[in-house]
């Protein structure tokens, strides 16, 4: 409906924003000036327009003065355009008859030293808005439906918790007539569980990690609302909020999943036996390479799903991943009637349609070889924290016996070096948040297992969580030697007879004020957390950004930690930044709640500032189509005209500017509107 037929009645409000604007810009003067402009029937200044009384003012004035256009000169539209549009709508006025002018970020805040000119500028900007708003048209917000299914990428504790939270909210009654709602959980490893599955105990409670995790893992595996896709990766994502089409790649296990019972007879009968052919075994990834596994294996005893898989790079039936069929396949014989092994299995892809996505892909541990000073890989008895987690674990490579690399010797002194790779300009500037706590935990566990003398070398002891400082106190009582001094080097060069055959840590004990040499049998490196190696590829797939450190970027560090800049896509857990399990679970719940909020509402509202093509004027030249960054423009071959998918259009204006025949128009940025605004600014003298 064009308002050109009826008289235009503009209401103008200039906000003091307390001192923010009022101190520099003379607001009453601006209001007085604007009152002189054509079509302006009401012009006032006010202290805080965004407050309840301020909004009420707009509402009352619209009714009282029969306003059909509103302009507010105040702060950034990003902050309160929505607020004022809402006030207009509440009074029955189409919210798109509203225009906002920024005289704070664009004026008072940047011209604080020049109040006279700042006021003039405010007047000019206000005139521009007033002339523009006269050209505004009524627009309607579009509703985009949200698909009910959810995709969760990453099956660590974050993904698991989010999956269960959402899946438990779905009430899929068989006779509802509606398709059942699903949570797809995609995990690239053969089992869910993530890093937490590798830990022995968790701080500060010293709960057994597997004991608290595996029930959740089983629940996921058994949940009727969760479709678990392990050994799978997301290859591609298309679409927009509420309507994502995701292509998932399923890597071949060479096992028919439905037929495998998890009996593991194939594993015990595999021709590659540790006693006979140890060189043909592969490094056991789950045990951080501390022991070996066969070509056919299950990642760890509590793996979910309980399905084995075959590694084509090591299996004798393959050669470098290509099937040769030369092995006698004792595994197939052992499998017997179940016939679950299929060497011809190929990678498959599947398309999923979901409305929201939660990315919970976790972290990667810092590679200790980047700090050669600590001797990892050079001296055998230097370990990473994850290796030690497996060492102390009862289901680990040594059955929980802490012995050195020779497999026999029990260490009598152990040194734990904090901040490996973290708080370091040369590797990672950030603090990895969990290492102090897990170093305390490992100090406790190692002492418990070996009775060894423990030394922790730290810069600061960071205990930010609930019960964490108390845990530190407990370690102090256990007699752990805490030495405040960052270790520069680990060496096996002995200066005294006591140091022979040991690893020596030379460090300045900064608190006691002396340089010390401490010989230890075993060195543990508290490696930091960093983004996954393929974080950049993953973020591109999901249209997300990464921060400077490489972790996925949240929409706002304080107020939107699980949202991304792409609507409908959320992040949770360590992929967003280093964090411990309680915070990860909290974030997973938060992301689940955000996803569920979208789902339960059922739709998102789309800003109407989309572009549309004037059919009559489109010449079918197709210049606009390749320019659209959101691939929102399509071509109707029958009519030889282009048309825009409003749901994908983000209103960037590229096609509008490029159309040679000027047949693309953008709502809220029509030529008349833009030119009036320019005219208004220039007209002001």
């Amino acid at each position: 409906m064009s308002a050109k037929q009826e008289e235009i009645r503009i209401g103008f409000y200039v906000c003091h924003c307390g001192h923010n604007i009022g101190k520099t810009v003379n607001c009453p003067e601006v209001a007085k000036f604007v009152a002189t402009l054509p079509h302006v029937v009401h012009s006032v200044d006010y202290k805080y327009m965004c407050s309840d009384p301020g909004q009420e003012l707009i509402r009352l004035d619209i009714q009282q003065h029969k306003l059909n256009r509103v302009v507010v000169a105040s702060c950034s539209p990003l902050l309160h355009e929505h607020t004022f549009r809402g006030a207009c709508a509440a009074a029955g006025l189409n919210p798109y008859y509203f225009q906002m002018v920024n005289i704070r970020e664009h004026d008072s805040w940047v011209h604080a030293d020049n109040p006279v000119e700042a006021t003039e500028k405010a007047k000019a900007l206000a005139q521009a808005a007033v002339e523009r708003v006269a050209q505004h048209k009524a627009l309607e917000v579009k509703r985009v439906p949200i698909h009910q299914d959810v995709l969760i990428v990453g099956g660590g504790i974050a993904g698991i918790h989010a999956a269960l939270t959402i899946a438990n909210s779905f009430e899929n009654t068989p006779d509802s007539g509606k398709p059942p709602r699903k949570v797809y959980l995609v995990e690239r490893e053969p089992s869910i569980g993530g890093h937490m599955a590798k830990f022995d105990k968790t701080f500060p409670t010293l709960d057994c990690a597997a004991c608290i995790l595996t029930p959740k893992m089983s629940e996921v595996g058994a949940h009727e609302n969760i479709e678990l896709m392990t050994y799978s990766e997301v290859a591609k994502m298309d679409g927009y909020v509420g309507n994502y089409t995701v292509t998932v790649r399923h890597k071949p296990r060479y096992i028919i999943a439905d037929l495998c019972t998890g009996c593991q007879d194939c594993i015990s009968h595999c021709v590659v036996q540790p006693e006979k052919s140890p060189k043909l075994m592969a490094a056991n990834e789950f045990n951080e390479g501390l022991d070996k596994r066969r070509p056919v294996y299950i990642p760890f005893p509590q793996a979910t799903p309980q399905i084995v898989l075959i590694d084509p790079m090591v299996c004798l039936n393959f050669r470098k991943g290509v099937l040769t069929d030369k092995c006698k396949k004792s595994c197939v014989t052992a499998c017997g009637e179940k016939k679950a092994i299929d060497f011809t299995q190929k990678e498959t892809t599947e398309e999923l349609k979901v409305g929201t996505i939660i990315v919970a892909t976790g972290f990667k541990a810092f590679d200790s070889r980047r700090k050669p000073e600590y001797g990892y890989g050079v001296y055998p008895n230097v370990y990473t924290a994850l290796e030690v987690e497996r060492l102390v674990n009862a289901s680990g490579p040594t059955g929980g016996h802490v012995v050195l690399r020779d497999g026999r010797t029990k260490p009598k002194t152990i040194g734990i070096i904090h901040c490996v790779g973290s708080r370091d300009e040369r590797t990672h500037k950030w603090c990895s948040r969990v290492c102090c706590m897990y170093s305390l935990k490992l100090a406790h566990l190692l002492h418990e297992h070996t009775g060894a003398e423990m030394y922790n070398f730290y810069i600061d002891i960071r205990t930010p969580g609930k019960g964490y400082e108390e845990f530190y106190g407990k370690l102090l009582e256990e007699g752990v030697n805490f030495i405040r001094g960052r270790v520069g080097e680990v060496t096996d060069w002995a200066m005294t007879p006591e140091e022979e055959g040991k690893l020596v840590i030379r460090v300045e004990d900064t608190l006691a004020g002396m340089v010390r040499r401490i010989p230890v049998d075993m060195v543990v490196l508290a490696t930091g957390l960093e983004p996954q190696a393929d974080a950049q590829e993953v973020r591109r797939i999901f249209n997300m950004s990464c921060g400077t450190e490489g972790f996925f970027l949240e929409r706002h560090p304080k107020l939107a930690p699980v949202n991304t800049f792409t609507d409908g896509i959320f992040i949770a857990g360590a992929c967003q930044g280093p964090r411990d399990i309680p915070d990860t679970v909290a974030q997973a719940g938060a992301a689940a709640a955000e996803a569920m909020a979208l789902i339960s509402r059922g739709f998102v509202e789309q800003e109407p500032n989309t572009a549309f093509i004037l059919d009559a004027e489109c010449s079918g030249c197709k210049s606009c189509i390749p320019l659209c960054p959101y691939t929102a423009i399509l071509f109707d071959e029958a009519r030889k005209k282009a048309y825009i998918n409003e749901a994908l259009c983000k209103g960037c204006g590229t096609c509008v500017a490029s159309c040679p025949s000027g047949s693309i128009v953008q709502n809220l940025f029509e030529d008349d509107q833009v030119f009036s605004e320019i005219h208004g600014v220039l007209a002001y003298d």
Partner: protein
Amino acid sequence: MKYSYFPGCSLKGLGRAYEESLLPVMAHLGVEVQELPDWNCCGATAYMSVDEGRASVLAARNLAIAQRMGLSVMAPCSACYLVLNKTQHNLAEYPAMRQTVDRALGAVNLTLKGEVPVRHPLDVLTNDIGLEAIRQKVTHPLRLMGEVTEKAADGTLVRRTGVRPLKVVPYYGCQIVRPYATFDDKNDPTTMDRLIEALGAEVVTDYRLKTKCCGGSLTGTVPDAGLRLVYILLKEALKHGADCIVTVCPLCQYNLDAFHAQIASRYEPVRIPTVYFSQLMGLAFGLPARELGLHRGVVPMPALAGPEAVAAAQPAVA
């Protein structure tokens, strides 16, 4: 291949054996070196302790002279190598310093534009000449007559006199790998290790002190500290059963070579010869020992087994 050559004060003085061996070795490899005409002292660490501006000027004058010759500079002495490189880094990073130095150079009509590559001989040998070319020039692989342990046909270990490779500890010292590790790794440099191997000698690969400081001038000024640092290096070399230590720096060589009497009286005797890598190269190329300055070592190098001795004895290692 041609380089300008910046010897530095030490290579004309206490470290003359370095120059005496390096120049014939370079010539033997077909590399031309031309000494910087009328070069001045680089300032080493001492001048930097007094005045940074002046110290930079000292280095810059030499760089300007080299630039006029249009050649990259080869600087064998570790201190000179570091000072020249550090000065160039600073001139590139700090415009104020650049201005000051330019002004000083301008006072005597010298200019320095951009950067002059300053290379260490190990860098030139490994990257420009290549270890393969060096290997081909080796006519006298470094061998010693000595005690060798072998496995006999029946599996028992037998000790006899034979020929074995010279066992060498590669000692890099600090200043060619820190703070600028341009041609080698700063934690575990291996250019010299690979060079020594190419000469047919056996390298002690786990000498953990290969980049630890020898104490520099402290052996003279604060012997309590300096001599101990030297003692540690020598003792560890002996512990690894080495025949000699090979070094890249004249001050390191002097420290490791000339203080044995004091170290023996303070701590214990730890006698082992220390030579320059260029001297070992010269020996491997068959150049006469006298012409390589080997007589200048306070602790003499043992005589190596020549090809005839090797042929005569039953070699333990093929």
